[in-house]
C-alpha cells in the first residue's frame, strides 16, 4: 500500500496493514492527530485497507 504523509509529503510503501487503526499505529499517530484519506474520502479507524490502496495521512497539528 502506498502512503503519502502530509505536510512533509513523504511517500512510504507499507505492507500487511489491514486497517486504518493499524496504519495509524504503525506511524505512531493517535486517530485524532491525522486525517486518513482514500479516494478523497475520510476514513474512520475501523475501516479496512487493501494492498492496492493509496492513502493520504494528513497530520493536523498546527505549527508556528
Amino acid at each position, binding site marked *: 500500500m502506498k502512503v503519502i504523509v*502530509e*505536510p512533509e509529503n513523504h511517500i512510504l510503501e507499507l505492507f500487511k496493514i489491514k486497517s486504518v487503526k493499524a496504519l495509524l499505529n504503525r506511524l505512531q499517530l*493517535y*486517530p*485524532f*492527530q491525522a*486525517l486518513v*484519506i482514500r479516494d478523497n*474520502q*475520510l*476514513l*474512520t*479507524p*475501523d*475501516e479496512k485497507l487493501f494492498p492496492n490502496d493509496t492513502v493520504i495521512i*494528513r497530520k*493536523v*497539528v*498546527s*505549527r*508556528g
Partner: protein
Amino acid sequence: MKCTRCKQKAVVALPSHNAGFCASCFLLYFQNQMEKAIKKQKMFSPRHKILVALSGGKDSLALALQLKLLGYNLECLHLDLDISDTSKQVKTIAQRFCERFELKLHIIELKKENLSIPEVKKKLSRPICSACGQIKRYYFNYFAKQNNFDVLATGHTLDDEVSRLFANTLRWDITYLQQQSPILEQDQEFVRKVKPLYRLTEFETAVFCFLHNIQYSTIPCPYSKGASFTFYKRLLDELEYNQPGRKFNFYETFLKQKSQLFPPSTSKNKINFCSICGYPTLQDICGVCRIKKMLSKTS
C-alpha cells in the same frame, strides 16, 4: 462505523463525544459547537461587527467560514510578517480563501510599518516570538479600534486552550489563570477578544476544512521552536487518547470553577496612552513604538 445521528456510514469518529458522524452531520455538529460557544459565553450577536484574525492556517479559516455560514457580520485581517517565502504563501492562501467565500480581507504589511519580523529579530535581544506576539496583538487591536469593530475573533481551539491551561497550572500562575478565558472583556481602550472555536479541536477544524475543500497553510514559521508548548500538546494527546473527552472536561470544569478559585484581581494598573501613537500602555511609550525606535536607531 455508522453516523450517530442519521445511521449512514460515518466518516469521522469522535470518541470524546462518544459519537461518529457522516459528512453532513459532522458539519452540523461543528456549527452547533460554535453556536454553543458564542451563546454560552455571550461573545457577540448578529448586530456586532466582528474582525477575524486570519493567519491562513486551518483554524482561522474554519472560524471565518463558519461565522459567515452562521450569518454573522465579519471582515478579516491578515498580517503580512515579511518572513521569507512563508509570508507570501500564507498571504496568497488568505486572499484566495476570502475571494472564494466573498469575505472582505484587510492586509497590514509589517514591512511598510518598518517592523519586518526578520529585521526585528536581527536587532532585538529578546526572543523574537515575544516581540512578534506583541506586534500582532497591537495591530489587531489597533485596527479593530480604528475601524469600529466590536470584537476580535481568533482561531484558538480547545487544544490551544488546554495546553495553555496545563502550562499555567503547572506553574500555578495565578495571574494567567485569572485571565485565561474564551472571552476577554476589555476596558474601553482594548477591543473585546473571543475564541469561538474553544469547544472544537484541531482535528475537527482539519476535518471541517477537508469537507469544505479549503486549502490552508501548513508551512511552519522558520522561527518556531515548538519547545515546551508542543511537548505539552503531546502529553495531553496521550491523556486524551487514553481518556477520551479529558481535554474538554479539564477546560470546561476550569471555566465553571474559575471565578471561585481564581477571582479576578481588583487592583487595576493605571493605563496611560502612548505619547507617540496613542495606544494604551502602562509606560509612556508603548511596546511597539519602543521596538520601532530601537530599529530606527540601529539601522
